[in-house]
């Protein structure tokens, strides 16, 4: 007893609840720092509210009004009725009318339409003769979700609509056959759709972070002061910071695509060179956007938050996870502003549909425009002084 008493008395007197006091001191300090960083504080509120409302309204897993092309080789009442019946299902929205098979194929391959309906020559006559001719509905099945529900609804709905419209009797006596043709991914395997999209998603995440931290890191470590006192121009700083990561991104892309082909059996139907070229463009676009973030934010935490704020819509609104055509128009406009949207289209088109450059002009130009825009903002935003 006496021994322990002397030891206790010999110790420096520790205030009661030392653990809690010290933890509390730390906690108070953290709250003060959090409150000082206004931007981070605002993002804590904005991030969940904005993202939830945005995605809550935008995401639709049973998409309607999907863009559809019609190849009419005869202009008849029956043909028009069938098209009207299809449009009445609300799944199809006829955006294009073409007259040659080549145009029809091009629209599907470039992703401008998700469905194509072909009414063959002599269709009405064949129906009247009771030959049960075939009505071809081709679907771009690279995204099984988008195509699936529409194709599933097609047969019964059109039949009922037509029965009502033309009084041709009950469904069993269907006077023609609807032949659906799921192109590009006939077995509706989702991995064929997911893997190419993942190439873009993974690259977005990694590339954005690389450059988003680059300028803030220089500021936080104090090296920016030295750098600014030397004769270097904002454009030169930007290129110096982006180019190494283009190489890094290229290696990553090669790895992901390689694994996709070898492990998941995803084909590359189109040109590998074109894929490499456009992937490099996409990588550079993301690096430019990350770098732009870096010139806007004040510290690394804000850079990370901004990157997340950009990354989430990229996943959800780009058509990677949910069908792009199924989103409301305003959400589609947002999607068009995201590089991933264009790259998902490009990479799916090249790998699964064997698309060539002429099918991908729009998305390529969009990517390049986004890249140039980001770079211009970055160069003008880059502060050359410490003012």
């Amino acid at each position, binding site marked *: 007893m006496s021994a322990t008493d002397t030891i206790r008395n010999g110790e420096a007197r520790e205030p009661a609840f030392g653990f809690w006091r010290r933890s509390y001191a730390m906690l108070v300090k953290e709250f003060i720092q959090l409150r000082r960083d206004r931007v981070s504080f605002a993002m804590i509120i904005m991030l969940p509210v904005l993202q939830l409302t945005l995605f809550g309204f935008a995401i639709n897993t049973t998409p309607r009004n999907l863009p559809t092309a019609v190849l009419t080789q005869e202009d008849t009442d029956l043909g028009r009725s069938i098209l009207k019946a299809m449009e009445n299902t609300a799944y199809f929205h006829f955006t294009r009318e073409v007259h040659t098979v080549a145009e029809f194929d091009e629209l599907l391959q470039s992703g401008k339409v998700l469905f194509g309906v072909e009414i063959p020559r002599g269709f009405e006559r064949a129906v009247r003769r009771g030959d049960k001719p075939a009505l071809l509905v081709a679907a771009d099945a690279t995204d099984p979700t988008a195509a699936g529900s529409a194709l599933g609804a097609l047969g019964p709905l059109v039949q009922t609509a037509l029965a009502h419209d033309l009084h041709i009797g009950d469904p069993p006596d269907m006077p023609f056959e609807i032949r659906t043709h799921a192109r590009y991914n006939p077995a509706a395997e989702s991995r064929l759709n997911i893997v190419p999209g993942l190439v873009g998603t993974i690259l977005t995440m990694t590339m954005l972070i690389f450059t988003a931290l680059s300028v803030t890191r220089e500021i936080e470590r104090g090296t920016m002061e030295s750098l600014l006192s*030397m004769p270097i121009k904002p454009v030169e700083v930007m290129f110096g910071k982006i180019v190494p990561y283009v190489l890094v991104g290229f290696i990553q892309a090669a790895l992901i695509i390689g694994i996709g082909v070898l492990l998941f059996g995803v084909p590359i139907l189109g040109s590998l060179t074109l894929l490499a070229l456009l992937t490099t463009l996409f990588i550079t676009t993301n690096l430019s956007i990350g770098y732009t973030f870096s010139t806007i934010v004040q510290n690394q935490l804000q850079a990370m938050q901004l990157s997340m704020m950009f990354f989430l819509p990229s996943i959800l609104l780009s058509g990677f996870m949910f069908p792009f055509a199924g989103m409301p128009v305003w959400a589609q406009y947002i999607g068009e502003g995201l590089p991933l949207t264009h790259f998902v289209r490009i990479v799916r088109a090249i790998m699964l549909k064997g698309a060539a450059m002429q099918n991908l002009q729009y998305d390529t130009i969009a990517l390049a425009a986004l890249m140039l825009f980001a770079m211009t903002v970055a160069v003008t935003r880059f502060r050359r*002084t410490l003012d």
Partner: protein
Amino acid sequence: MNGGPTSAQSNASSIAIDVKGLTKSFGGREVVHDLSMQVKRGSIYGFLGPNGSGKTTTIRILCGLLTPDSGEGTCLGYDIRRDADKIKRKVGYMTQRFSLYQDLSVRENLEFVARLYGMPDARGAAADMIARIGLKGREEQLAGELSGGWKQRLALGACTLPNPQLLLLDEPTAGVDPKARRDFWNEIHALAAEGLTVLVSTHYMDEAERCHEIAYIAYGHLLAHGTVDEVIAASALSTWTVTGEDFNGLMAELTDKPGVDMVAPFGTSLHVSGRDKAALEAAIAPYRDNSKWHWQPSEPSLEDVFIDLMGRSKDNFQG
């Protein structure tokens, strides 16, 4: 154009820094107020003043890192507002906080600087500089792992590497041991002998005395400038040195006397200073006969002058 109306042309080549009326505010607080200064080429110009007096801000304005709110001037003949890019090519700036890349080696840091300035043989230039600053054998060490003295040498090496005409050194010897400090100053004098102009800010009085000219700045105002002797003479301060024992009571008593502006202990002696010679003598008269102490009139030291200037400027500008 920016110098005096007639002397501008003839002085253009002999003056490295010539600025007038520089003013800079941050968030409504004026950090530099109507500051004018001239620095001769090839001279070492000391920049003194208390913390937060505007030294760093002035240096940053001179090398184009900050834009002055008002005022104008030239640095190496280039306009500080319009020709920041040209100034940056010919000025070496050593920041107060170590600002080279900590995760790059000594050699890599120097090669980076050499390449950035477009030097034809970056490797060779870096190797020469490593030898000159005595870092041979440490070239592959990461800059972040160097000790304070070595870091400071590396920083000086990096900013002299592109052969600048003007060096701006912001408290380069803060936190460095006396030996390293002396070596550093020898290097500065060697560089000045080669024709380089050096503007150096410091808190150390012994360093101020190593400068050809000094300027004292407090609360953004330039209060005194010239050679050390000129600054001391201009202060018109009278000082008595007291030697003896037991100053504690004396210090407290003298501090509040009218005529005594400053009492400062220096080891075994005490410096008692006043701006009014007669008033000072009247104040100390009662103590001069005490056998405990020995009183002797002396020259004020530079430190006496600066502490007096600081005290006065506080009264004037801080209210």
